[in-house]
């Protein structure tokens, strides 16, 4: 069996009477794309936040690269190699595209307490940043203000910034959201190749992308994982069809 890079073990999280995560156990193995799907309000965002370190679970553990990281914050987990993209683009809007990518490379390198040298003339950081921008197809836009980018381009930049970190795994929260058909297709092709570099835990609503990409799919409903399996297994699963793909289809 391939190495497990991320593992959650019986995560529980409640908000008052609402059980947002209920005994959620899943893992991510090297070389794979593991998609997490589920209807709105199923608790996907809550789960992502517990994996990234924004939320502390009520019980259960999160393991990253074989180490228990439940008590570590987002910064520590990012440093360990968790590359995250956000559902709503989290970028420095006043910066140029290149500056955002350089910020990522700087974070990846970690030595930030330099007060005199010009960060935009650091050849090592620039090379990593330009390289990442080229891979997502933003080279032409490197000197544009991030605020002036289209929605789709911001999604691309999110992925580029994650790339500059050279992460050991990716945590992508709806990277296709709001992309057009063409953009979605292009990103699908890109992620397909990316899994060889680092495995991806992919939260996504775009079912075409999910079924085309995922090695395994987990279905989250009301805070519980009701099924995990290959695309075919999930398609054939009656419970999934009932809960998620629409009852009328299952009937």
């Amino acid at each position, binding site marked *: 069996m391939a190495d497990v890079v991320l593992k959650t073990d019986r995560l529980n999280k409640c908000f008052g009477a609402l059980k947002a995560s209920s005994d959620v156990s899943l893992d991510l193995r090297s070389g794979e794309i593991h998609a997490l799907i589920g209807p709105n309000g199923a608790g996907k965002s809550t789960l992502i936040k517990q994996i990234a370190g924004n939320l502390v679970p009520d019980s259960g553990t999160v393991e990253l690269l074989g180490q228990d990281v439940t008590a570590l914050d987002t910064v520590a987990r990012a440093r360990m190699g968790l590359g995250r993209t*956000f559902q709503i683009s989290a970028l420095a809007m006043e910066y140029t595209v290149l500056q955002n990518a350089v910020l990522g490379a700087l974070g990846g390198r970690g030595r930030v307490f330099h007060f005199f040298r010009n960060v935009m003339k650091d050849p090592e950081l620039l090379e990593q940043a330009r390289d990442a921008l080229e891979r997502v197809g933003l080279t032409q836009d490197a000197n544009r203000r991030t605020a002036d980018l289209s929605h789709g381009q911001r999604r691309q930049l999110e992925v580029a910034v994650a790339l500059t970190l050279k992460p050991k795994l990716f945590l992508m929260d709806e990277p296709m959201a709001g992309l057009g058909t063409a953009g979605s297709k292009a990103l699908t092709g890109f992620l397909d190749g990316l899994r060889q570099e680092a495995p991806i835990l992919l939260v996504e609503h775009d079912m075409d992308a999910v079924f085309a990409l995922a090695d395994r799919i987990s279905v989250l409903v009301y805070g519980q994982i009701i099924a995990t399996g290959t695309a075919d297994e999930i398609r054939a699963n009656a419970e999934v069809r009932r809960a998620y793909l629409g009852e009328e289809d299952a009937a």
Partner: protein
Amino acid sequence: MMLTRESLLNWAMIAALLVVPLAAWSLDEPFIITLATKAAILALAGVGLNIALGLGGLISLGHAAFFGIGGYAMGILAAHAQNYEPLFEWPFLFEGSNQMPLIWLVAVVFSALAALVIGALSLRTSGVYFIMITLAFGQMLYYFAISWSAYGGEDGLSIWVRNEFPGLNTLDPIQFFAIAYVILCLALVFAARLARSPFGLALAAARQNEDRVQAVGLTPFVLRLTAFVISGAITGLAGALFADLNRFVSPTMLSWHTSGEIMIFVILGGVGRLYGPVAGAALYILLEHLLGGISDYWQIFLGVLLLLIVLFARGGLIGALAGREKAHG
């Protein structure tokens, strides 16, 4: 490198701040030199605040604390020196000092320490709570100074003779101006480099999007605390110079009015613009001098101006003259 409109404007301002007192010197108008010196020192205080406020997005209403600590560093050292009373006798005898370099060092160290403590506590909050906590710390020091009778209490401390700088006659207005001007220029060079440095990139990113900074593995709190300490140290240095200009320090330097004034320099000139505090402080001194001659209530006009700038020219004076800041690539 091509000169942008903003950098041309910056050069023009810093040149004007030099030419005006030089002209006044040749015309034997020491009062104008003193005004220019005051503008340079207050601009320096603003350059300090601008690192926290403009770059880091930290709305500190407590920078009077650092300005005042710098002032009292000067006052206390110089008072002991002029009265020949030892400040402490252990581990060695120290009778205060009237040497500016030593006074500046003490001012910078103590205001940086104060910024470290105040920052470490107040940066755990954000938004309006941060404003209130910095304000509260400033007021705490203000009331402490009022009741500190050993150093003049409410009346403050007067120094008879301005402190000395090796090789210069600091009592000559133009020479003291030169000291303040050179320090301001050095601080501007430092602030410019800081803004473009790896630290500056990360700090300003934390202002724009905290999640992003954390996701790339950097801790916003540490970045902000560092910025706050640097900011407080520069404002503290300005405080030492300001006290030396007046040969007087009093709790007024620590009051929240002073915090507000420093913030006004930054806002008038343009928040986050490198030379914003220079434009703001110069304009403030100019208005105080010109309008103050017309009416004792000149600050009403200042208030109107501030209102207009906040409503219509968010980039302050520099934003109005040089346009929106370019994202430099």
